[in-house]
């Protein structure tokens, strides 16, 4: 059993890149990661990769080189990137290999996703009558949460305002212009209480992370973070998920809360030890609810936390320091790896204008998606 390190990272800018396919963006990210680390594709012993809607990752070998390495395709919906990293992490931890890559990429058409009921085990009427929209789920989850825990619309707007302010400082972000809270509140209502600027959009992008064993990381001598925990969990009984025609009266935990607990236990740290966090922010409300589900505060405390700026880059717990999904968009296969990329860049002091100060040591990332899956990774500066 070896500890696992991230010793290199590359990213293709998120947003819309008409001239490159999703696969080509994946290749771009891999080459950038290798180049920054001074490594060659021939050094890479294995790869895990995937996309939700942009092709088969292993075909990248025709661009990157036919070295014969094992390349495992991962297709796990919204957790594709997280699952690729989980695969690479487990492979190195087991001692099978000591240098590998996890890559995720995607390219989605504009607008909301258009799921097919049968693929989700649901009857056609659910989609036909206009109930099968992820946007409705997010709106209804935060609507109830706001009523139960005293969160205001202004707090929703503050989360989006912070995201665009941070995105303006991140080279890889899609939305690079700050947007003020008044504009966010008065933009088109999409699904009450969420306006257009409070939702992220499907997008394009790619991320590659190079993972190494402890011995390999030491011999390479590169800027590195240690992966102290990677936990992927599916939904427990009584959780509230997208595409649910009904919910049990007995409410339960969420996949996020159980993945979070598992990750803290694996890492031997608690939320109080975390210096910065990247939390799934499909919309503003998700970031707010995920602050509590990941253990950073109690339900309702977000109202004060956000008013006091505690989650800004200069706050005590900076959250979504590159603008998160709100500013970067959500290419499903790449989104979770972007969060880990951001923590790697921050903890190795390479974040430039958005660098978190105060010598951050522990970074936390959390990705969530349909039909109820969460992945949490905790990294520590090496």
């Amino acid at each position, binding site marked *: 059993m070896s500890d696992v390190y991230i010793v290199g990272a590359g990213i293709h800018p998120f947003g819309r890149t008409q001239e490159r396919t999703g696969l080509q963006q994946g290749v771009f990210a891999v080459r950038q990661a290798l180049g920054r680390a001074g490594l060659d594709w021939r050094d890479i012993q294995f790869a895990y990769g995937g996309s939700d809607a942009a092709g088969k990752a292993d075909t990248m070998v025709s661009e990157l080189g036919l070295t014969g390495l094992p390349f495992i395709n991962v297709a796990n919906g919204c957790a594709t990137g997280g699952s690729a990293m989980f695969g690479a992490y487990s492979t190195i931890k087991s001692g099978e290999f000591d240098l590998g890559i996890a890559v995720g990429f995607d390219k989605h058409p504009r*607008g*909301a996703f*258009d*799921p*097919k*009921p049968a693929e989700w085990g649901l*009857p*056609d*009427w*659910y*989609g*036909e*009558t*206009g*109930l*099968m*929209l992820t946007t*409705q789920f997010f*709106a*209804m*989850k935060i*609507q*109830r949460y706001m*009523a139960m825990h005293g969160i205001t619309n202004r707090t929703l707007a503050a989360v989006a305002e912070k995201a665009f302010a941070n995105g303006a400082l991140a080279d890889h972000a899609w939305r690079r212009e700050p947007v003020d809270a008044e504009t966010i509140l008065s933009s*088109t*209502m*999409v*699904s*009450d*209480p*969420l306006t257009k600027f409070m939702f992220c959009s499907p997008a394009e992008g790619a991320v590659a992370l190079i993972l190494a064993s402890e011995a390999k990381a030491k011999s390479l001598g590169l800027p590195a973070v240690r992966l102290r925990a990677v936990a992927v969990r599916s939904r427990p009984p009584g959780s509230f998920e997208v595409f*649910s*025609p*009904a*919910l*049990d*009266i007995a409410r339960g935990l969420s996949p996020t809360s159980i993945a979070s607990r598992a990750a803290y236990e694996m890492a031997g740290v608690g939320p109080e030890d975390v210096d910065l966090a990247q939390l799934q922010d499909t919309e503003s409300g998700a970031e707010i609810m995920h602050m509590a589900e990941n253990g950073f505060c109690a339900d309702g405390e977000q109202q004060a936390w956000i008013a006091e700026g505690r989650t800004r880059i200069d706050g005590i717990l900076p959250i979504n320091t590159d603008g998160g999904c709100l500013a970067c968009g959500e290419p499903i296969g790449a989104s979770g790896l972007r969060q880990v990329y951001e923590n790697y860049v921050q903890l190795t002091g390479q974040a430039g204008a958005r660098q978190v100060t105060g010598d951050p040591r522990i970074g936390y990332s959390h990705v969530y998606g349909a039909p109820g899956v969460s992945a949490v990774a905790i990294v520590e500066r090496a």
Partner: protein
Amino acid sequence: MPDLAPPIDDRLLHVDADGALMLLAARERESGRLVFPAPGDADPERYESVLLPREGRLWSWTVQRFRPKSPPYAGPEAFAPYAVGYVALGDAIIVEGRLTGAPLDGFAIDMKMRLVAEPFTLESGERRTTFAFAPITEKAA
């Protein structure tokens, strides 16, 4: 009721002898857990068919303000926003459906709601019946 268009799904709605609309669900015999909608190929040894309570309280809500993509949405091209919500039916189950019977900004969590038949027009112009929940007003109660 004779004036209702055909149901949008054969296993969704039940109209009792008094003409009252009810939702069809299934109860898992072993765990007692209610499942809505009833599984399409429900094994009778595992599930028994049940009808859900018709009244409850609004658990959450939102408004669908843009036309959903087709497919899966089967409504006409012309679009009017509609409210959607979850209603906790007694202590049985929380069911998602369209909301009707009030303006789009007229819903609030914990409102008393009742199941009603909801006409639904397909893109072809054919009419179907689905379900919705409407506030129980003083007048109707």
